[in-house]
C-alpha cells in the first residue's frame, strides 16, 4: 500500500508544482459556463432551467481536457514503463493515478460549482444536490476517462479520438447527474438518482482499472 500512497503523493505534488494546469482547467470551466448566459440570453427563468445541465456538461468537458495528459506525461519521459515494472499491480497503479487526477482536476471544479450555480439562479435545494451529485458521480468521469487516456497514450494527437471514444460513455452519468438536480428542483425524490450515480461509480471503480491496465500494457509494448 505504501507504493500506492507514494504514487498518489507524487502525482499530487506534480499537479501542485505545475499549478498552471489546475488553474487553467478551472478557468476553462468558469469561462465555458459563463458563455451560456451570453449565448442564451440573461433571462433568469431560462438560466435556471438549463443551469444544472450546463454545469454538469462544463465539469465533464473540463475533466476531458485534462485527461489526455493522465498517462501521456509518464509515457513520454519513460516513467510509465518503470511504474509498470511494479511492485504495485497495474490495476492499483491506475487507481492511484485516477485518484490523483480526480483530486487535482475535478474536485476544484466541484468546489467552485455552487458559486456558478448561484449566478444561474438555481434554487438552494438544487445547488446542494448539484454538489452532491457531482461528488458522487464525477469519479466515473476520471475512471472511464482513464480507459480512453490509456488507449490513446501512444498517439501523438490522441485528444480528439479520446473525446470520440469517451463522451458516449459519459452520457449515462450526465443524464442521472442532471436528473438528480432537476428532481430536486421540481421537488421529486432525489435518492433513486443518487443511488444510480453511486452504483455507476462503484461499478466503474471495479471495471475501469482492469480495462485501463490492459490498454496500458498494449501501449508500452
Amino acid at each position, binding site marked *: 500500500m505504501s507504493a500506492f500512497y507514494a504514487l498518489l503523493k507524487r502525482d499530487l505534488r506534480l499537479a501542485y508544482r505545475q499549478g498552471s494546469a489546475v488553474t487553467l482547467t478551472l478557468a476553462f470551466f468558469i469561462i465555458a459556463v459563463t458563455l451560456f448566459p451570453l449565448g442564451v440570453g440573461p433571462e433568469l427563468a431560462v438560466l435556471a432551467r438549463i443551469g444544472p445541465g450546463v454545469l454538469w456538461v462544463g465539469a465533464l468537458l473540463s475533466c476531458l481536457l485534462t485527461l489526455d495528459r493522465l498517462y501521456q506525461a509518464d509515457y513520454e519521459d519513460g516513467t510509465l514503463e518503470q511504474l509498470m515494472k511494479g511492485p504495485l499491480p497495474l490495476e492499483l497503479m491506475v487507481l492511484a493515478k485516477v485518484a490523483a487526477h480526480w483530486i487535482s482536476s475535478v474536485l476544484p471544479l466541484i468546489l467552485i460549482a455552487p458559486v456558478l450555480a448561484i449566478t444561474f439562479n438555481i434554487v438552494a435545494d438544487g445547488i446542494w444536490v448539484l454538489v452532491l451529485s457531482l461528488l458522487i458521480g464525477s469519479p466515473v468521469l476520471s475512471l*472511464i476517462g482513464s*480507459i480512453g487516456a490509456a*488507449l*490513446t497514450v501512444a*498517439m501523438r494527437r*490522441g485528444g480528439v*479520438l479520446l473525446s*470520440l*471514444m469517451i*463522451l*458516449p*460513455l459519459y*452520457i*449515462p452519468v450526465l*443524464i442521472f447527474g442532471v436528473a438528480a438536480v432537476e428532481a430536486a428542483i421540481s421537488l421529486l425524490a432525489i435518492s433513486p438518482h443518487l443511488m444510480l450515480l453511486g452504483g455507476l461509480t462503484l461499478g466503474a471503480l471495479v*471495471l475501469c482499472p482492469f*480495462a485501463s491496465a*490492459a*490498454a496500458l500494457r*498494449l501501449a508500452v*509494448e
Partner: protein
Amino acid sequence: MAIDLHRYANPARFLRIMGAIFPWVAISTAVLLIAGLYLGLFVSPEDYQQGDTVRIMFIHVPAAWMALSIYTMMAISSAVGLIWKHPVADLSAKAAAPIGACFTFLALVTGALWGQPMWGTYWVWDARLTSVLILFFLYLGYMAIWESFDDPSKAAKAAAILVLVGVINIPIIKFSVDWWNTLHQPASVATMDGPKIHSSILIPLLVMAAAYMSLFMSLFIVRVKSEILARRLRLLQMNKLQE
C-alpha cells in the same frame, strides 16, 4: 519455425466455407427483401391508431434489432480474439462495425421520420433514442481506433477493449423503455406474454428481420474476405522489405 506469421493471412478453411455459402445468402437476401417490402408496404393492414405511418416500422424495428445484435456479436468476437487469440475473431469484429453503424443510422433516421407524425417531434432526448445515438457513436469510435494504430495486432486489442467497455450500453438500450417512463413504446415482439402485435403485421416484420439478417451476412462475408486479403497483401510487402 516457431513463429507463425501466416496465422492471420491464411484462414483457408474459413474462406472456403464463406465462399460456399455466399451465393445462397445473397439470393435469400434479394428474395426476402422483396417479399418483406411487398408484404409490409402493400399487404399488411393499417394500424388502428397510426394508420399508414405504421409501415415505417418494417424498416425501423429490424434495423434497430440489427444495430444491437451486431454490436453484441462484435463484443463476443472481440472477447474471443482477446482470450483465445483466434485469428478471424478480430477481423470479423472489424468487418461488422461499419455495417452495424449503417443499421444504427437507418434506425435513427426512420425513427425520426416515424416520431414526427406520432409524437409530434422528430427527435426527443429520451432514454431509448439517446442510448441508440450513443451506440452509433460507439461504432464510430470503434472504427476510428482501428484507423489510429499502425500495428494491426495492437489496433485489434485496443478496439476490443473499447468494444467490451461499450457493451454496458446494450442492456441500457434494451431496458431503457421499461426502466424509464419514456415516449418510446415498450417491447412488442419479444415479451413474456407473447407478441403484442397482430399476426398480419408481425409476419412482414419478421420477414424483414430475416432479410436484414441475410443482408448483413452477405455484406459481412465480402468484408471479411477483403480484410483477409488485405492482410495477406500487407504481409507479402513486409516480407519483401525484409529480404
